[in-house]
C-alpha cells in the first residue's frame, strides 16, 4: 500500500478508528518521549517496566466493572509506585528486588481479576498487545488532556528533576524534597504508560518510554536537544509503524516497537559522535573534529 492509499484510508469515514488510533499513538509517543528522557537518564528503565505491568490490575478492574480504563490504570500504577518508593526506604533490600516483588504481584492480580470477565481471552489479548479498533472518542480528550498535564508538570519541575538525577546528596543538601520528587516522577511515568497502553499494549509500552529516549541520547550531548529528539523519534515511529501494520495487516503495537528498534539501531550505528561508525574513524580525524581539551593554566591567587 502506498502512502497515498494510507492517507486516503485515514480520511475515509468508514475507517474512522484509524485516524483516532494514529492520533493517540502519536500523542502518547510524544509524552513518552519526554518522560522517557528522565527515565533513561536516571537509569530507571526497570521502574518503567514495573509501572507498565502494575497498571494492568487497574485496567482489569476498570474493564470488569465497566469503569474508566485510564483512571483505573493510574490508580493501580501510582499505588505500586508509592509502595516501591516506601519499601525501598528499607536499606536491607535493594530497590530492584522490591520492584521485582511488586510488579509481578500486580500483574498476577490483573490476570486473576480479568479472568472473572466474560470473553476474557479476547480482552486479555487486547490489553497485552494493544488494539487500534474500538477506541471511544472521549479517549482522544482523556489522552490529550492527560498528556498536556504530564508535560506541564515536567516543565515546571524540570530543574528539580534534573538536580535529583545529577546528584541526590547535593540536592538534599540544598533542601530539595528528593523523596516527593521521586514520587512525582513515578506518577508521571505511570500516567504516560496508561495513556499509551490502549494502542501499543501493556507488554510493549516500555519500548515507547525507553527506546526513543535511548536513541536520542546516542545522537546528542545536550539535554534540551534530547528532549526534543526523543518525542520526534517516537512520533515518527508511531506513524511509520501504523502505516506498515495497516498495509501488511500486522499487529500495530508490535510493528511500532519494531520500527522504534530500527530507529535505535540506526542511531547506534550512525550517531555523529558516539555511533559505531564515528568511533571507527581514524583517531586523527576524530581529534580534528573536537578541539583538544586543554584547560587554561591554573593558579591560586
Amino acid at each position, binding site marked *: 500500500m502506498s502512502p497515498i492509499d494510507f492517507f486516503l484510508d485515514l480520511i475515509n469515514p468508514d475507517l474512522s478508528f484509524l485516524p483516532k488510533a494514529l492520533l493517540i499513538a502519536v500523542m502518547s509517543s510524544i509524552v513518552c518521549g519526554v518522560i522517557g528522557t528522565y527515565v533513561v*537518564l536516571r537509569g530507571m528503565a526497570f521502574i518503567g517496566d514495573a509501572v507498565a505491568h502494575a497498571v494492568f490490575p487497574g485496567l482489569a478492574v476498570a474493564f470488569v466493572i465497566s469503569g474508566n480504563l485510564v483512571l483505573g490504570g493510574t490508580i493501580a500504577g501510582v499505588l505500586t509506585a508509592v509502595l516501591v518508593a516506601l519499601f525501598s526506604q528499607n536499606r536491607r533490600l535493594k530497590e530492584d528486588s522490591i520492584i521485582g516483588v511488586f510488579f509481578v504481584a500486580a500483574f498476577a492480580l490483573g490476570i486473576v481479576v480479568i479472568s472473572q470477565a466474560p470473553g476474557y481471552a479476547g480482552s486479555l489479548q487486547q490489553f497485552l498487545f494493544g488494539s487500534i479498533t474500538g477506541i471511544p472518542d472521549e479517549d482522544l480528550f482523556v489522552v490529550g488532556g492527560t498528556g498536556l498535564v504530564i508535560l506541564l508538570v515536567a516543565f*515546571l*519541575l524540570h*530543574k*528539580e528533576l*534534573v*538536580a535529583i*538525577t*545529577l*546528584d*541526590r*546528596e*547535593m*540536592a*538534599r*543538601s*540544598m*533542601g*530539595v524534597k528528593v523523596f516527593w520528587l521521586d514520587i512525582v516522577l513515578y506518577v508521571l511515568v505511570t500516567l504516560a504508560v496508561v495513556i499509551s497502553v490502549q494502542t501499543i499494549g501493556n507488554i510493549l509500552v516500555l519500548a515507547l518510554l525507553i527506546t526513543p529516549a535511548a536513541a536520542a*541520547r546516542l545522537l*546528542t*550531548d*545536550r*539535554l534540551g536537544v*534530547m528532549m526534543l529528539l526523543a518525542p520526534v523519534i517516537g512520533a515518527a515511529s508511531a506513524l511509520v509503524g501504523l502505516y506498515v501494520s495497516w498495509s501488511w495487516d500486522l499487529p500495530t503495537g508490535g510493528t511500532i516497537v519494531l520500527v522504534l528498534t530500527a530507529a535505535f539501531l540506526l542511531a547506534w550505528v550512525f550517531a555523529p559522535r558516539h555511533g559505531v561508525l564515528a568511533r571507527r574513524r581514524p583517531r586523527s580525524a576524530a581529534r580534528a573534529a*573536537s578541539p583538544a*581539551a586543554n*584547560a*587554561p593554566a*591554573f*593558579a*591560586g*591567587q
Partner: protein
Amino acid sequence: MRVEGVAVELGGRLVLDDVHLQVARGELVGLIGPNGAGKTTLLRSILGLVPTVAGRVLINGQPTRAGRNNVGYVPQRHEFAWDFPISVEDVVMSGRTGALGLFRRPKQADWAAVGDALDRVRMNDLRQRPVGELSGGQRQRVLVARALALQPSTLLLDEPFTGLDMPTQELLSELFMSLARDDRAVLMTTHDLASALYSCDRLALLNRTVVAAGRPDELTEAQVWMDCFGVGETSPLLRILELAR
C-alpha cells in the same frame, strides 16, 4: 562554623560522639581520619542531612538546616552522574536549584553568580562543554564552582583529591587555600596527609570524636596519630609524617 558536642547514631551505632570543631572564616581546616571514622557523616550533619542525638551545629550563629544555611557542599566526585548530557555552566546553575525555589527560572543575577563561580575556579573557557568530556581535575573544579554558585560563607569538601594526580592535587590545594583567604570557612576531608599538612591551616583528627586538633606543626606527638588511625609505632604513616615536617 561551630560544631558543639554533636553525636550521631546510624543504625543503632554511635558514629559520632561529642564532636567539637570550629572553623573560622579565612581558615582551611583538614578533617583527617581512617575509613569509617565518621568524616562524611560529620559533613552531612553540618549540612543538616542527618539528625543528631546530641549537640548542635551553628552556621554564622544559626542552627543548621538543609537548604537554609548558606553552606556550599562538594560531595565526592563519584556521587555525580557524569554521563548526564549537560554543560558545565548548567551544572553550576544546578547548585542554585534550592535557592531559586520551585517553579522559578534563573534570572540575570543567577547567571552572574554562575559566571563568578566559573571564573573563580578558572573554568569559564569550558562553560559550554558537556561534563562527560572533562578530566578528573576539571570535574572537581566544576563541583567546587557548583558549590560556589550559592555564594556560601562555609564550604565543605569531601575527599576532593581522590583519584587525582599530584600536579592536579597541588592546583586544587592552592584553589582551596585561596577560597579560604576570601573570607570563607573551608572544611575538607582527605586521606592525603601530605597535601593536608602542607595546605591546611589546622587539622582535626577524627575517629568517632575529635582526637586532636591544631596547626600541622602542633600535631607532632606520634601517639595521637597512632590512636586516631589505630596503627602501631612502626607504621609507615608515622614515617610519612616525619618526612613531611
